[in-house]
């Protein structure tokens, strides 16, 4: 194949989009991360590139040169992806009726019988829109990580992993078939596992990583069935051949499902695929992994929550929407099981997660629950057929949520900076560790831990600052408890909003950008992107509600309530973090410092803030008073106009109703007003209790503990399956029943054998010398090579054969035959 095709032919060019980051991953992993070519220097760390957290152990870290090279390689990869993406996107904007005609190319991937499976790329309007958002958000995250991870000894590894993450997401976006989408989907799962558990020494980190991977895998194996089923029924997995093909879709919607009778094949496949999304996009009841994913470094949180992972879940159902909708017409009140499932799960999740977010004090956890809630908005929107609105919200949400996460990361970074500052000056502490230790943005200082067997571990400090851990049940083994530096400092939670306050003074850029992101999340009317996308969903819901459709009513009511709560907890978060007076010394001294760290962490915030404000104007309804005429002069929403031809039939414009924007105004402004009234009018002072505790009373602990879902799942899934695995599958079945059967039979036959031996000896004694001697000789020879158990097993096998043969013969009735 002519390789120049990739550069010259626009149909082949999309292959290059994921290539950059994937190549960067390979280069960093194999070359720059740990190369002997890069001389070891010791500018940053004492000793010869010694890992600062392992003072007594020879643990080398990547040299500054290797680290810089890794950053450069990683950035080059994502910048290449961004440039190629935007050039393709720009090209597609110019294509008339883009969508009827698309960019696509494919190669033969595997032979299946006499047919083949084609693997390829596709750029249609939906992909094009994703390509606007994903590379840009990823690029911002990469830039941010330069500063954020600057003090982490494993920054090079971090860049290799986020490059793989970005590459996987871009693969998923440009995939032209469900299998390739699934490839990207699962590799992202791996990346999230590796990155959530990036500080793999920490029990909370690796537990969160395992939790994330396992929870999403529950959904993924079901999704795999959906893919296999779709492949079986249609003989292809290509999006265009299935989704852009009326015949295939109607055939699928008329074929009864292979199991779970009563629904169509399309519906069953749809339900399987939606379950995949429920896991990946952390919808109730599989939402539990996402808040714990906060254990990863903050750029990862932004990656998971905005640009990549959870967006991929929603993207998949948006992509498969024609299949999910097959046989139903949500706009005229006809629903099928996939749509109902999405409407209910989405609506429930949106409201459920918003209530939890109200009672969280961790700055990142509030955002994590808001992500779950906002994804619920999108899923619910799809459930009522608001295809365009769901896509629109996916994009705007990605921008403002990436912004919020990175701004919160800046807050945490600033808090830690302030903490060290206060510590160094306030307590006359020697500051040798202040800048030497790795950056960590999580609460440490847990002195009593439990290892995974439930043994308490007592941590003691030895003279060298190394923790000694005595694990009961094993011989005493010292473990390095990490990070060493944080062990010394005791407990300080840089993420707890109760420790913050007044940050607007010391961190002005973060404050302004956080405010923009927060208002966008809250749907502050007219000037934020979040308002327009949320409003569009509510409009769809309202129009259906006014025609009396049940799912629309459910979605509208739940989402309006959730939007109100969203505005409220956003106001609470903004107030607690930035307003009032500092509640701790750390907050008083919090700042990002100067230089490259500060610059690289601030720039992405500004870029994303622009999008969080203005990205919404492409989706203004033409009938919206005044603004409609300005932004949508052609009597058509530009965003919808472009996206429309992704579907076979362009979706119709939802008639405008003033009720919906009024509702949006009411919930957003009402929620913000209530939040600011409670938290900003009289800002919380140090030591004061959150007024929520008093107002909510007994409900508060329930919300604070996330409705006890973690405890519930541990009790009904995790513990039983661990018990089953060890005690039933291994000890009882394998060691007990199967081996026990073998050993028992062996013992019986040994006994019989011994009996015969006695008889033999007695009999043989009567004969001459020759025979017994020969028997004995061969016997002892046999014994030498076969250790005496040979006979036992031989007999076991024979017996087993006989038993099975008898069962078989009896059950098949062959003995009765002539």
């Amino acid at each position, binding site marked *: 194949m002519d390789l120049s095709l990739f550069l010259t032919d626009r149909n082949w060019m999309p292959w290059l989009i994921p290539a950059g980051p994937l190549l960067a991953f390979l280069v960093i992993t194999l070359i720059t991360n740990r190369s002997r070519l890069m001389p070891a220097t010791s500018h940053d760390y004492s000793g010869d590139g010694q890992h600062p957290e*392992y003072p*007594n*152990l020879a*643990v080398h870290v990547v040299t500054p040169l290797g680290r810089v090279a890794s950053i450069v390689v990683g950035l080059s990869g994502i910048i290449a992806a961004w440039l190629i993406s935007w050039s393709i996107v720009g090209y597609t904007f110019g294509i008339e009726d883009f969508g009827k005609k698309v960019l696509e190319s494919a190669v033969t*991937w595997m*032979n*299946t*019988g*006499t047919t083949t499976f084609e693997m390829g790329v596709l750029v249609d309007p939906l992909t094009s829109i994703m390509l606007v958002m994903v590379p840009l958000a990823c690029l911002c995250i990469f830039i941010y990580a330069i500063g954020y991870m600057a003090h982490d000894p494993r920054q090079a590894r971090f860049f290799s992993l986020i490059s793989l993450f970005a590459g996987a997401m871009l693969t998923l976006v440009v995939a032209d078939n469900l299998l390739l989408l699934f*490839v990207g989907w*699962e590799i992202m799962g*791996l990346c999230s596992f590796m990155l959530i*558990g990036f500080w*793999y*020494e920490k*029990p909370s980190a*690796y537990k969160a990583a395992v939790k994330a991977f*396992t929870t999403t895998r*529950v959904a993924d*194996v079901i999704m*795999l*069935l959906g*893919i*296999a089923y779709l*492949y079986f029924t249609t003989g292809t997995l290509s999006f265009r051949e299935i989704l852009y093909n009326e015949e295939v879709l109607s055939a699928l919607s008329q074929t009864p499902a*292979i*199991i779970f009778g009563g629904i169509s094949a399309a519906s069953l496949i749809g339900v399987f695929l939606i379950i995949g999304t429920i896991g990946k996009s952390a919808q109730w009841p599989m939402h539990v992994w996402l808040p714990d994913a906060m254990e990863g470094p903050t750029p990862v949180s932004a990656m998971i929550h905005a640009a990549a992972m959870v967006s991929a879940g929603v993207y998949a159902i948006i992509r498969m929407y024609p299949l999910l909708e097959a046989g139903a017409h949500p706009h005229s009140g006809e629903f099928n099981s996939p749509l109902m499932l999405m409407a209910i799960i989405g609506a429930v999740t949106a409201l459920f997660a918003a209530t939890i977010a109200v009672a969280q004090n961790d700055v990142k956890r509030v955002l994590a629950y808001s992500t779950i809630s906002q994804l619920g908005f999108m899923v619910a929107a799809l459930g009522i057929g608001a295809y365009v609105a769901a896509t629109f919200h996916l994009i705007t949400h990605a921008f403002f949520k990436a912004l919020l996460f990175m701004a919160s990361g800046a807050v945490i970074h600033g808090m830690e900076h302030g903490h060290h500052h206060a510590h160094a000056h306030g307590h006359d502490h020697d500051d040798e560790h202040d800048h030497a230790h790795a950056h960590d943005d999580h609460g440490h200082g847990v002195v009593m831990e439990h290892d995974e*067997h439930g043994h308490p571990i007592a941590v003691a400090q030895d003279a060298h600052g190394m923790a000694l851990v005595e694990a009961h049940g094993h011989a005493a*083994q010292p*473990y*390095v*408890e990490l990070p060493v530096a944080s062990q010394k400092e005791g407990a300080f939670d840089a993420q707890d909003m109760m420790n913050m306050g007044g940050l607007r003074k010391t961190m002005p850029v973060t404050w302004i950008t956080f405010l923009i992101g927060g208002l966008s999340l809250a749907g502050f009317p007219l000037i934020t992107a979040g308002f327009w996308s949320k409003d569009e969903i509510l409009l769809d819901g309202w129009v259906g509600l006014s025609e009396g459709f049940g799912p629309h009513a459910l979605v509208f009511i739940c989402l309006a309530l959730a939007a109100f709560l969203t505005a409220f907890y956003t106001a609470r978060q903004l107030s607690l973090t930035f307003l009032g007076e500092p509640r701790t010394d750390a907050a008083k001294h919090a700042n990002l410092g100067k230089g490259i760290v500060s610059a690289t962490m601030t720039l992405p915030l500004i870029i994303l803030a622009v999008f969080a404000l203005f990205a919404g104007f492409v989706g203004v309804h033409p009938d919206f008073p005044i603004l409609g005429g300005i932004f949508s002069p052609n009597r058509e929403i530009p965003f919808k106009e472009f996206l429309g031809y992704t579907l076979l039939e362009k979706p119709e414009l939802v008639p405008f109703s003033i009720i919906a924007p009024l509702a949006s105004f009411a919930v957003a402004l009402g929620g913000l007003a209530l939040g600011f009234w409670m938290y900003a009018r009289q800002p919380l002072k140090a030591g004061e209790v959150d007024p929520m505790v008093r107002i909510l009373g007994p409900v508060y602990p329930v919300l604070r503990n996330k409705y006890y879902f973690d405890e519930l799942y541990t009790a009904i899934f995790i513990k039983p399956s*661990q018990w089953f*695995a*060890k*005690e039933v*599958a*291994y000890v009882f*079945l*394998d060691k007990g029943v*199967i*081996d026990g059967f073998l050993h028992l039979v062996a013992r019986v036959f040994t006994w019989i054998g011994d009996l015969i031996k006695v008889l033999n000896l007695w009999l043989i004694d009567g004969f001459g010398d020759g025979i017994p001697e020969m028997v004995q000789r061969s016997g002892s020879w046999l014994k030498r090579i076969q*250790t005496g158990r*040979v006979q*036992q*097993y*031989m007999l*076991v*096998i*024979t017996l087993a054969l006989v038993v*099975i*043969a008898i069962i078989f*013969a009896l*059950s*098949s*009735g*062959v*003995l009765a*035959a*002539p």
Partner: protein
Amino acid sequence: MIIGIDILSFLVFFPAIAALIVLILPQNRILARWVALLFATIITGVSVAVYAAYNTATPGFQFVMQQEWFEVLGASWHIGIDGISASMILLTGILAPLAVLISWEIEDRVNTHLALVLFFVTGCMGTFVALDLMIFFIFYELSLVPMYFLINQWGGPNRRYASTKFFIYSMGGTLGMLLATQLIGITMGTFDIVTLTQNWPAFAGDPTNATFLGISVSTVKALAFLGFFIAFCIKVPVWPFHTWLPDAHSEAPTAGSMLLAGVMLKLGAYGFLRLVIPLFPDVWVEPINFLGFLETNWAGIFAFLALLGIVLGAFAAFGQTDIKRLVAYSSVNHMGFVALGIAVTALVYGQAYVNGDSAHMMDAIMATNGAVLQMFNHGLSSAGMFLLAGAIYHKTHTRDMTQFGGLWVRAPIYGGIFIFMSMASLGLPGLNGFVSEFLVVRGSWPVYTVLTLIAMIGLLFTGSYILKGIRGVLQGPFNMNWAGTRLEIEAREVIAVAPLMVLILLTGLAPNWILSVINATVTSWLGGV
């Protein structure tokens, strides 16, 4: 033709000759190791050459060689390969030098150890190329002997129990197969597999009353079937015949584990595809009535056992704290998918043979492709996993994961490779295992829908035990017991694992390099029922 003998015969006998040479070499470790590696590399070269020369476009067996051998019995030296055996030969050829390279860590009786490894290759090659039942049986049994001694002499603390259990179980299992082989051979007057595949299924005994030696023909066939069935079930292993495997794998020296998991288990699955399905299509689908209400057939029973292997194998692996036992149980889990694919093949092939029903032929082709590819993939990933488990065992002298923890920090390269291999084993898309598992699931879903649905539990817990392995070895705080131990993977081990990683990635990204070969054979075979 090499040195006057045909290439397949060379492939069969050269490893044995090489073993003899290594055995009689002076007792010099360095010399023996390099010579053995050289020979093993020649085996690889010839295997690759055979694979490359294999012509996908030509149906039927290639490189066929038929020579009179045991005329009285009707046995002949008849060998040849199709796409399935070609990929198995390639697998054996690839693993041989890697196992030799890993055996370099053995310091005790080096010549004998290396000779046994090479001798084992002869057994496997012979089985894969055999087109004569006697030849097949002889080589099938022959492969047991070196493996027995490898475990028995160089194994872990519990090696005697493990090796005896392994040997007696496998040997005992083939007793029925030996009888069945004799029965078929004597009845039909030939041991030729190609001829038997055509004649034996049609065998009707005494035309007047469908009996043979006074017993109904269906009983005779069923008993013969059972002989093969049990033998191969033990070898694969299919649940509940699997309990020899965790013992043997975990006690075997690293090279032994690699070959055991990588190649030996494939002999069983290969036996099903080469013999049991073509010889007994009618028996597979003969209705069986359990206790008067449960209507099934042997294919259904086999699929059910495969399911149990997938699910309970995954659970049992999840219940382990011994890293090698965990990997060993993962083989039960993965070979369960091979068995599931074979069950689909057996059912559809049988139905097509008995009543010409070929509605599910496409599914069967997918499932068979998947099963054969899974055999190849499991050979790569399980050999890799055992290599890595052995590497850490060799350095720490423990297999107990609770004694590890946080090793990643001292062994970053090892950690990276370990995660890569684990993900291959887990079936991460983009790596090889996913392609084959997807094909099996795709093929079995329309045929055994409910079983496939339940099998997903196994797939889920595959993730759980893999993560448990990663967590146990790499993650967590560093255990200072190993502060003075050199934990990082050695260059020799990296060289041994690198080809596996390349092939794993290649097969995951572009499976057609091998799947096209498998698919051509499977399609012409199943398409021509």
